[in-house]
C-alpha cells in the first residue's frame, strides 16, 4: 500500500476532530514512506511554528520508522550513538513526542506529526488520527 492524498486527508481530519474535542489548536502533517510531505493542515489560530514542528515530527517518525519520541534514545551520552544530534538530518530531525509512523500491517507507509498541545496531548491526537482516520481508509 502506498500513501495517497485521500488517506492523508482522512488522517488529518480525524486528528483535527480529536484536537477540537480536547480544545487544542494544532497543525497536522502527513508524509509518505520516504518522508515527503503529502498534506498539512493548520487549524485556525494555531501558532505559526506548529506547522514546521508537525512536519518535522512526521518526517522523523516515517524515516526512522518509529515514534519520534523513541528517536531520542540514540542520543543517550552512554550509548555508541551519541553525537547523532550533531548530524544535519535534512534539518528535520526532532525527538519531541507527537510523531508516529503510519503502519499497514508491519509495513511503514508514512508518518503523521501533530504539534500544538503538550507532547502527551500531541501523541493522543496522533493515536486518534491513526485509530480513527487511517483505520477508516478505503
Amino acid at each position, binding site marked *: 500500500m502506498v500513501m*495517497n*492524498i485521500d488517506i*492523508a*486527508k482522512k488522517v488529518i481530519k480525524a486528528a483535527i476532530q480529536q484536537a477540537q474535542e480536547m480544545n487544542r489548536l494544532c*497543525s497536522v502533517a502527513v508524509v509518505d514512506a*520516504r518522508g*515527503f*510531505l*503529502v*498534506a*498539512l*493542515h*493548520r*487549524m*485556525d489560530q494555531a501558532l*505559526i511554528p506548529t*506547522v514546521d514542528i508537525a512536519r518535522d515530527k512526521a518526517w522523523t517518525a516515517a524515516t526512522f520508522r518509529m515514534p519520534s519520541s523513541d528517536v531520542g534514545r540514540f542520543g543517550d551520552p552512554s550509548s555508541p550513538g551519541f553525537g547523532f544530534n550533531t548530524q544535519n538530518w535534512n534539518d528535520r530531525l526532532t525527538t519531541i513526542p507527537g510523531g508516529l509512523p503510519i503502519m499497514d500491517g508491519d509495513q511503514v507507509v508514512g508518518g503523521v506529526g501533530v504539534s500544538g498541545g503538550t507532547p502527551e496531548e500531541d501523541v493522543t491526537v496522533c493515536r486518534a488520527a491513526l485509530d480513527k482516520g487511517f483505520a477508516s481508509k478505503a
Partner: protein
Amino acid sequence: MEKITLEMAEKMLEAAERWAVLAGYPSSIAVVDEAGAVIAVHRMDGAGPMTTDISINKAFSAVYSGAPTLMLARLLDPRLTGKTIGSGGLGLLTQAKLRLMFIPGGNPIRDGEMKVIGGIGCSGIPDGVGEISDTTAVQAGYAAIYEEHD
C-alpha cells in the same frame, strides 16, 4: 472577509486541484495566511516531492512581495534589467533565507480593501505546454472563496 480560515483554504485547494486535473498534471497546492505561514498544503497523487515546498514558497513569496510570483519572474528578465547590475531582481535572489520563488504560480489573496490576507501557490503544471498553467490553477482557487463570501 478578514482572515483565511482552514475551511476556506480547503475550498481553494479543491478548486485549484480541479484545474490541475483538467490540465492533466498532478500538482501541489498551498494556501498561506497573511504571515506567509502555511494553512493547508496538498500534494496530489503522482505529483513530485519537490512540488510541495515549491508551492509553499510560491504562496509565501506572493505574500512577502505583495505581487504574483509572475512579477518576480519578470524582475529577473535580463532585457528589463536597468543599466546598473542589481537594479533588477538579482538582489532578491538571496532574500528570505532563499525562500523567494521566481516562478509564476503564486498569487497574493486580497480582501475587499485590497489588503493582502494570504497567498496561494501551485506547482506541477508546466508553463506554456497547455492552456492551463500554475497561475490559472491558483486564480481558480482564489475565485473559489469569493463565490460564497460575497
